[in-house]
């Protein structure tokens, strides 16, 4: 008898924690907005981590979706349906899609790269539903698009802040804790954009990249940053990973840093300069508006104008967080000047024109080869910018001055 009771107790404990997670909210049509089209509009979202996260990638998207819904007068409590903690596994993504389609949603956002094949299949299976995939490259002509942004532009601006700091401290070594290196164009273009920004200010500067081999790994994010500081004598730590650990490590060592995804000044008030950030709500509100306007799902891509959304500084889709007090003097002037060049379309990061930024913040342009760290010329002096498809898909090199540590 005692054995049975014990087993039951053990089972109950197990069940308590199995039942956590899942979808929200219940079908509750209270608080319906006045407009009928809006009132019937339902948004679905598939997240890789928990919707309750308070920082990181999923948090940024969730925040973007709810902000966009607020802006459009939609009620995120009743019109947003989420399936969260969905791993990059085809069967599980398809199951999440089925759940959301069962809730009668009009558009489904999938935020993780690995959902790509499942969403492609689902878009064919459910032609009445719009599928929109973050960071992906697949799409069709009707109800399936992808969206991503020119993070490298924001990276370049944060690189300027880091470069000016290297001039101020006299330490030319900059560290970069990255999830991956040249394996993904996303990380490579971010590292390259940042490094070019640093070099525009300080041509002597070196960027040491340390790869985690994982998108989220907090313990090692901290360890890698400390290692870059201790062994490679880096004075500024930049990052392409979720948590603020690299910034916290920089603060502990009395160094400086540039964050990513969100303003990390609160995490490391004495170290953080500025972070490259995403304003996901810019895309989400555009996409939701298009989804409401297009009438039927098959006209969504036509309404958006393209099957791939690729916003940048100009659309305010990416940006740098407000500069902290730790920034060197004139950082604001320099960043404002370069921002103007990018927004106006006069200049872009991966082109045959190099910017030189003086310590007083003045910017001068000069033709120069864009060279990778093996000495190969990528863009000849004066040449046009590298194509978007390369930046998002096939950039598998580091620019000169970047070393893997």
């Amino acid at each position: 008898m005692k054995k049975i009771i014990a087993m039951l107790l053990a089972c109950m404990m197990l069940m308590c924690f199995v039942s956590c997670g899942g979808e929200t909210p219940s079908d509750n049509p209270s608080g319906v907005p006045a407009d009928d089209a809006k009132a019937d509009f339902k948004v679905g979202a598939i997240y890789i981590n928990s919707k309750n996260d308070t920082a990181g990638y999923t948090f940024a998207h969730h925040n973007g979706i709810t902000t966009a819904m607020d802006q459009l007068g939609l009620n995120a409590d009743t019109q947003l349906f989420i399936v969260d903690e969905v791993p990059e596994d085809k069967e599980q993504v398809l199951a999440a899609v089925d759940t959301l389609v069962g809730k009668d949603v009009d558009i489904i956002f999938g935020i993780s790269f690995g959902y790509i094949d499942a969403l492609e299949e689902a878009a064919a299976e459910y032609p009445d539903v719009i599928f929109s995939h973050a960071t992906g490259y697949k799409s069709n002509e009707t109800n399936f698009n992808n969206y991503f942004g020119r993070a490298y532009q924001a990276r370049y601006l944060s690189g300027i802040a880091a470069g000016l700091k290297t001039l101020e401290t006299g330490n030319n070594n900059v560290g970069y804790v990255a999830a991956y290196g040249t394996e993904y164009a996303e990380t490579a273009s971010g590292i390259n954009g940042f490094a070019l920004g640093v070099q525009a200010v300080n041509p002597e500067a070196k960027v040491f990249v340390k790869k985690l081999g994982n998108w989220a790994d907090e313990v090692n994010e901290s360890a890698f940053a400390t290692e870059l500081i201790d062994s490679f004598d880096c004075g500024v730590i930049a990052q392409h990973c979720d948590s603020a650990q690299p910034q916290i490590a920089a603060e502990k060592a009395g160094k400086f840093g540039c964050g990513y995804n969100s303003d990390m000044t609160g995490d490391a008030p004495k170290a953080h300069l500025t972070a490259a950030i995403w304003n996901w709500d810019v895309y989400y509100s555009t996409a939701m508006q298009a989804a409401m306007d297009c009438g039927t799902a098959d006209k969504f891509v036509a309404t958006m104008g393209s099957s791939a959304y690729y916003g940048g500084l100009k659309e305010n889709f990416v940006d740098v967080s407000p500069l902290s007090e730790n920034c060197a003097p004139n950082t604001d002037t320099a960043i404002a000047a370069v921002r103007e060049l990018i927004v106006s379309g006069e200049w872009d990061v991966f082109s045959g024109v190099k910017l030189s930024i003086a310590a007083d913040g003045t910017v001068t342009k000069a033709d120069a080869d864009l060279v990778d760290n093996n000495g190969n010329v990528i863009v000849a002096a004066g040449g046009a910018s590298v194509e978007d498809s390369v930046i998002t898909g096939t950039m598998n090199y580091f620019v000169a001055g970047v070393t893997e540590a």
Partner: protein
Amino acid sequence: MDKLGVITSFIHNILVFNIPLLYGTVGEIIVEKSGSLNLGVEGTMAVGAIFGYIVGCFTNNLLVGILVAFLASALCGLLFAALTVSLQANQNITGLTMSIFGVGVYFFLGRTLRAADAWPMMNDYENIKNGFADIPIPGLSEIPVVGHGFFNHNILIYLGIAIAIAAWWYLKHSKPGLRLRAVGENPGAADSVGINVKRMKYLHICLGCGIMGIGGYYMGLNMTGSFNSECWINGYGWIAVALVIFANWNPALAIVGTFVFGFFNTLRVSGSSLAAAFPEVLGWLAHIPTQLYQALPFIITAVVLVISSIRNKRGGSGLPAALGANYFREER
């Protein structure tokens, strides 16, 4: 590049990032020596971590944090003991359940606090922050190369080593330690000479689990209390279970085991620095793919288990004979 500095920081890192394994291993050795196999190390550490961190911060007292971490995890031990010793539940299943339960409690508490915007930030609590800072041991820490690596650490690292040595002495040389080993080897025989088997088991399961909890608390502090989507314990509890076998149920050997294991674990962080500092000898380290480094702890664990089982066949194993079997007096 400061070549000797790279070695120093490598040694320093080994201790900083692997000392929780020592807490987990020593705690589990004490539990297992009583004849109970507790696979719930991961969950037990998580519970200690979250309670220790939260209470420690709110009282702004590191000692209170350590104490609460110990007590919270000891309570997990009490639950485990109640289920397996008194109610005779299967130890493997209960242990696995404790792992899921503990990590669940961790996320439940953490997320509740974060949702309420009440999560304490370690940097706001001076006593915790300063209490966790490195304390150089006078004299020893000035030895070139190894001084900073071995003798300039935070209080919890010294405490971990001290607990391991104390546990070794307790098991090997004290009277209650001898009784405990008797219970683990043959509870029936121990019972027949008047040792209170139940009490011994309860006490040592709680004690061992409490020690694991301090290790969990350490991991939270080492992460500067940053609570995200991953658990602080990050699988270390499971590795600790394997390290118990590597250490042959000897807390003193657990120190060696932690260091050997930590050496390979830390190569992932420091490997490329070592390669850059000593290109002729260690240059090859830079060409090892990250994925291999990530797999290394588990490969090492597998190798260790194979070596241990070969050693055990030849005798001399510290494996308690009655490990994993519940003791029911009336069935004697």
